[in-house]
């Protein structure tokens, strides 16, 4: 059974309904009892059968799962709609609903039948058998190794190089120290009274690394001299040129 039975006291008689896999299953079985093609069943008669079945179950004080009751209510509603004169019928059209119910029953029936026919086919492992001990097909990959002389020579070089103790040499880089920068800023500022941009304190050089070092050191030097009260700093806005003047 797919559907979990509703919880209830163990003695409660749910037996009468437990044979059905939900209301649709019950409806399909009732429809089959009409002994006509499902396309020609009388939906009204089916509704009557279903409601009678549920009523019987109730008089026997059987516990009935909620979805069966919901279906009963819906079928009662459908029945009343079907019995109304056409012009008074509510929306959605009860005839349409009845047709859809009939199609659902047909489809469930068709799939049940199809399942049974599938299971009845000659199945591998049950009715027909594959070879019990196949030899199997194997693909054996035989490697064809490739290398070249350069790989061997440079490989040997790499081995030997690993064996040689490595000596690390730190290359000397031209920098402007903070002391040099302070002295330079003080010297340049000493003779001026106007505002000078920070860049003006950096010596002209083609060495970009040295220029950046000098710029950084001159900036820190300007901060240091400002702290000592030797210079004043001014900047109009973030990222604007930093201006320096003797204090």
């Amino acid at each position: 059974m797919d559907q979990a039975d509703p919880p209830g006291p163990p003695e409660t008689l749910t037996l009468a309904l437990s044979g059905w896999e939900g209301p649709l299953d019950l409806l399909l079985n009732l429809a089959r009892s009409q002994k006509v093609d499902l396309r020609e069943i009388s939906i009204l008669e089916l509704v009557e059968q279903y409601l009678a079945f549920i009523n019987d179950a109730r008089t026997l004080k059987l516990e009935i799962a909620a979805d069966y009751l919901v279906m009963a209510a819906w079928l009662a509603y459908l029945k009343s709609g079907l019995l109304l004169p056409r012009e008074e019928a509510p929306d959605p059209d009860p005839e349409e609903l009845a047709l859809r119910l009939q199609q659902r029953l047909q489809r469930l029936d068709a799939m049940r039948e199809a399942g049974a026919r599938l299971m009845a086919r000659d199945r591998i492992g049950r009715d027909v058998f594959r070879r019990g001990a196949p030899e199997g097909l194997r693909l054996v990959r035989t490697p064809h190794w490739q290398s070249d002389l350069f790989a061997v020579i440079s490989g040997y070089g790499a081995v030997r190089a690993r064996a040689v103790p490595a000596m690390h040499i730190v290359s000397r880089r031209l920098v402007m120290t903070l002391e040099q920068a302070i002295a330079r800023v003080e010297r340049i500022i000493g003779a001026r009274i106007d505002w000078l941009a920070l860049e003006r304190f950096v010596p002209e050089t083609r060495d970009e690394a040295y220029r950046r070092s000098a710029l950084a050191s001159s900036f820190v030097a300007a901060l240091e001299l400002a702290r000592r009260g030797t210079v004043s700093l001014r900047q109009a806005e973030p990222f604007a040129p930093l201006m320096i003047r003797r204090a």
Partner: protein
Amino acid sequence: MNAAPDAAIRAVEATLFAAETPLSPAEVAACVGSAVDVRAVLAALAADYAGRGINLVERGGRWHFQTAPDLAHLLRRERAETRRLSRAAVETLAIIAYHEPVSRAEVEAIRGVQISKGTLDVLIEAGWVRPAGRREAPGRPLTYATTPAFLTDFGLSSRRDLPGVDELAAAGLLDPIDTTPVMLEMEKDGEDD
């Protein structure tokens, strides 16, 4: 069969006989060489074996030898009966096979009950059903479809071979599935019971 099969027939025969899984013509060709007209040889071999205790069959584009169905009674005896599928599993398998790709909600709409967790698992574990991508629809539901092993195990050359599939399609019973529950159309009227 013919008294002296030619080299191509012998090669294809041995290859399919030794294979552990059904083989496509391309896979056979990879073994026997591209000089062989594999499809013609397969047809000739199938004819050779028709009526024998072993048959050569095509399932979903792949070929394998198997015992003749009418001899099942001889062979079944010593083997454990294959696990019986629950009714729910059988119906679910049928719904997937006839409607694939199909979402769980659609299976439930047809059956009128929820699928318990184990039902799809059993079918996937058996190798008959596989997840087949998500549908581009609200909620992007995962869909399911059958596998090549389903065709092989149930002796179907293709899904067109499904019993009664043409009649069902003609009757509109394989049309897209409406997953709106019937009850929702009732609105509030009938609920005071």
